[in-house]
């Protein structure tokens, strides 16, 4: 039986300081996050007992956040919605809390966009006159540098990794036809002589291997990082690095929804029932071929010598998924309602892509971006090399609503804005993130460290007390709400937990 696909997304945002003589992205990222955390600490409703200022000399965010167990000397905040907000190398990175289905995952991903937008506004008040921060939710600077938007899925440890690789690879190569965020030009060392003016994916240019551990060079389509942040005997975490960051909610929903479903099918060995194998002859080459093929018409070579288009591979995956849903149910992807929406949306986009991709300008990032860039290019008679088109490509992803091009396109929303607003501070109710978030809301000053799989309390006199959270589906609202409301102090909580 497939296990519940607990999932989360990590997004590295692009950042640049305008007006600075020597922009320092690490300092800019720290300023951004510190500004956000300091602003939170001034808000009513936070239970701060100490009076230390929001920023400590070492650069740690202190209030409203917990320092990491491993000190990185970079900002690392854990937010009350259970998310982690930190500096990763030279980028601000937001990791959603653990979510239990595709809607929840995009809800917390969207909440992250609000966190970044508010950070930009907060940082503006700290920067010298004439300087401002620009933050983009994209994956490439257009000059050969890429940064990631990673997905994480909880999987059953007993499933052989080779089976996962075999069956997830064709999905990863072909799902970009609806998950791609679009990009002007190409950054690949070679495009095989092809003149790539616009392509479907931000990331396809940067993948060189089929399977591997790397994330920054020789990037693999299937990443082998094996760090489950929970009981590693029972679970693995599939760390997916091949995706683009999405702003379109439909595209984001499908990215994690279809992938959750495909992974459940792999756990239940459902591909053994397929009438054929979808193993690609050259997955790395196919990834780019699909990304460069705006007509979605090019055949891909399969290992058995036949060919299929990306869209036909996706149709057959949908077909298999429908049969899987009928026979095995949809509990592992969040239940019948969420599962049905995944299947329906999946079908709608494939039908739209097949008849007229431009009909999906309200649903898919790459189509929306292509439509406005192509329209602008025609209106002003620009060449594809014009800087204005490259600037539009970047500005599509700006998190500042006043600058974002995407925000102007009136794209279809799946999420209620009030829930997104609430999710900036409230944790999901269906995973251990609930316990983490609620404890941080009430007792942040008594929490010495917050990690994915533990909370460490500092009660002052005793040694530090660690509460392990090794089961992602324990510590939910159903499990701990009553306990949390019945105790009046962290000491009482720990006593009741018996830790």
């Amino acid at each position, binding site marked *: 039986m497939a296990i519940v696909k607990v999932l989360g997304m990590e997004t590295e945002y692009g950042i640049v300081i305008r007006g600075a003589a020597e922009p320092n992205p690490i300092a800019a990222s720290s300023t951004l996050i510190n500004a956000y955390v300091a602003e939170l600490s001034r808000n009513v409703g936070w239970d701060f007992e100490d009076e230390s200022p929001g920023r400590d000399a070492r650069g740690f965010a202190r209030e409203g956040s917990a320092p990491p167990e491993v000190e990185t000397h970079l900002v690392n905040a854990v937010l009350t919605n259970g998310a982690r907000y930190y500096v990763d190398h*030279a980028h601000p990175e937001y990791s959603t809390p653990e979510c239990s289905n595709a809607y929840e995952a995009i809800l917390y991903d969207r909440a992250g966009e609000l966190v970044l937008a508010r950070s930009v506004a907060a940082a503006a008040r700290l920067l010298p006159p004439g300087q401002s921060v620009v933050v983009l939710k994209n994956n490439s*600077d257009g000059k050969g540098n890429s940064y990631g938007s990673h997905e994480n899925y909880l999987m059953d440890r007993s499933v052989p990794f080779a089976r996962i690789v075999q069956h997830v690879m064709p999905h990863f190569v072909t799902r970009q036809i609806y998950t791609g965020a679009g990009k002007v030009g190409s950054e690949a060392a070679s495009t095989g002589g092809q003149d790539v003016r616009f392509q479907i994916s931000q990331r396809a240019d940067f993948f060189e291997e089929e399977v591997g551990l790397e994330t920054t060079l020789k990037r693999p389509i299937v990443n082998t990082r094996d760090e489950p942040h929970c009981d590693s005997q029972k679970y693995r975490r599939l760390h997916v690095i091949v995706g683009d960051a999405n702003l379109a909610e439909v595209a984001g929903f499908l990215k994690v929804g279809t992938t959750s479903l495909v992974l459940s099918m792999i756990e239940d060995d459902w591909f053994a029932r397929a009438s054929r194998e979808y193993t690609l002859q050259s997955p790395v080459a196919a990834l780019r071929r699909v990304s460069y093929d705006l007509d979605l018409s090019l055949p891909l070579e399969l290992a058995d010598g036949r060919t299929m288009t990306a869209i036909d591979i996706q149709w057959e995956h949908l077909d298999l998924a429908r049969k899987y849903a009928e026979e095995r149910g949809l509990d592992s992807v969040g239940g019948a309602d969420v599962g049905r929406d995944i299947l329906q949306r999946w*079908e709608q986009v494939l039908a739209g892509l097949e008849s007229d991709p*431009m009909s999906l300008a309200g649903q898919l990032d790459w189509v929306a971006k292509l439509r406005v860039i192509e329209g602008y290019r025609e209106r002003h008679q620009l060449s594809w090399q014009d800087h204005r088109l490259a*600037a*539009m490509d970047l500005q599509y992803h700006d998190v500042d609503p006043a600058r974002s091009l995407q925000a102007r396109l009136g794209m279809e929303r799946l999420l209620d804005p009030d829930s997104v607003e609430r999710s900036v501070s409230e944790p999901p109710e269906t995973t251990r993130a609930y316990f983490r978030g609620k404890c941080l809301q009430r007792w942040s000053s008594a929490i010495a460290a917050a990690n994915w799989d533990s909370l460490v309390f500092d009660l002052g006199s005793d040694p530090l007390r660690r509460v392990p959270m090794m089961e992602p589906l324990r510590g939910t609202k159903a499990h701990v709400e009553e306990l949390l409301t019945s105790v009046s102090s962290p000491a009482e909580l720990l006593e009741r937990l018996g830790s």
Partner: protein
Amino acid sequence: MAEREQIRKPAPARSEETPVEEVPAANKKGEELKAELDDLLDEIDEVLEENAEEFVRSYVQKGGE
């Protein structure tokens, strides 16, 4: 290569009540769509980075993942 069989899509399982209520753009007339895009492009002209060349040039991201 020439004798390779091209796999045809096997009449995929599109559900009976194919839900087509979404995808609003698909039903609009070409002219309506064009007018909509024109308005959008006017708006984009106003918010687009003034110094596009400088912005694109300065946007360099190193390190990550």
